[in-house]
């Protein structure tokens, strides 16, 4: 979890650095009175790198994903819990001897 967390923080830092660079680039363009067509290429590369890092961190940090298919083995209900609130004790098991030496020391 530690590694994923650090990578996630790094990705966020890279993204904010890219945003700051874009703002500075726009300020520079305002000075030279040119149009802002898009951020420079190195900012785009930085954005993509930040995106990859953040995505990887987002998938690793939360841990194991749970299955959502209703008929996968983890979710498929094969038996309902026995109705323990309505359990009665005079069943045929009374006639069968337990066989184990059940004693409390």
């Amino acid at each position, binding site marked *: 979890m530690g590694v994923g967390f650090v990578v996630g923080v790094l990705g966020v830092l890279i993204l904010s650095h890219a945003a700051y660079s874009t703002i500075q680039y726009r300020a520079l363009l305002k000075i030279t009175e040119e149009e802002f067509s898009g951020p420079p290429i190195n900012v785009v590369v930085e954005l993509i790198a930040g995106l990859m890092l953040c995505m990887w961190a987002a998938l690793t940090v939360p841990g194991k994903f749970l299955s959502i298919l209703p008929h996968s083995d983890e979710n498929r209900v094969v038996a309902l819990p026995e109705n323990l609130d*309505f359990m009665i004790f005079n069943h045929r098991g009374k006639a069968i001897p337990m066989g184990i030496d059940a004693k409390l020391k």
Partner: protein
Amino acid sequence: MVSKTEEEQVNRLESQVENGGGGAWEYLCLVRKLKLRRSDKVLKFGLSILNDPKKRSALGPEEWTLYEEVAVAAMDCQCLDVAKEFTKVLQKKFPGSKRVGRLEAMLLEAKGSWAEAEKAYMSLLEDNPLDQIVHKRRAAMAKAQGNIPLAIESLNKYLEIFMADQDAWRELAEIYVSLQMYKQAAFCYEELILSQPTIPLFHLSYADVLYTLGGLENLQTAKKYYASTIDLTGGKNTRALFGICLCTAAIGQLTKGRNKEDKENSQLQSLSAVALEKDYKQRNQSKHSLLTATLKSLKLS
């Protein structure tokens, strides 16, 4: 709701503890969480933990839950002196506790002294007239004594107050089915499906009851519910597959004269027949020929 992986895990742990490996405490926790009724194993493993003072002190405060669990298992296995010992230990630790009071009343029930148990439950109800578990135990006691009409009546009264109680609806449905009052049982299953529509076993039981009732409309509805069971279990429920085949055969028999909509349903039946044959070929090769013969006779009728 016991899923497939959980069931396998419980069975694995059980065989592991049987053969001498550790893990008794995990087994007991899992059984308690999944609410299974494996009283003989619980009693054996629980006693092995509780008779060993080192393991007992390692449990800490969970020891008392284990006492309660093993006491109930002992009552189920008719080892009443063990149950009495444990109840006394719990009574000493938690005097005046309602939970221990319920346990003592259950012990009286297990011994067979119904009148005393009834008195104990009534006194518990005086302190707290809305205690759900005590109401349910009284209905269970009526069932145990064989007084089924009284059990039905007390369950109905209980359900008028606590309408959302799944266990009570299930119990009532099973009692009605045992008395062959299928219309009322269908009503109970409808309530269960309404509250928990993603559990395929309720759909399956409802479809079974409808199929038993018979009649063209009921058979068609039953076929729909078998189909929804197959949908929810991904085709792994053999009983639902059989249900589709039988429903189609029964509907075909009832509508022999009229030939309005015969071709659209045969796809469902043939698909389920194919799925059944594949399942039997994989799991039980010896019965496969029996299955093909049965399916052939169904298709003809």
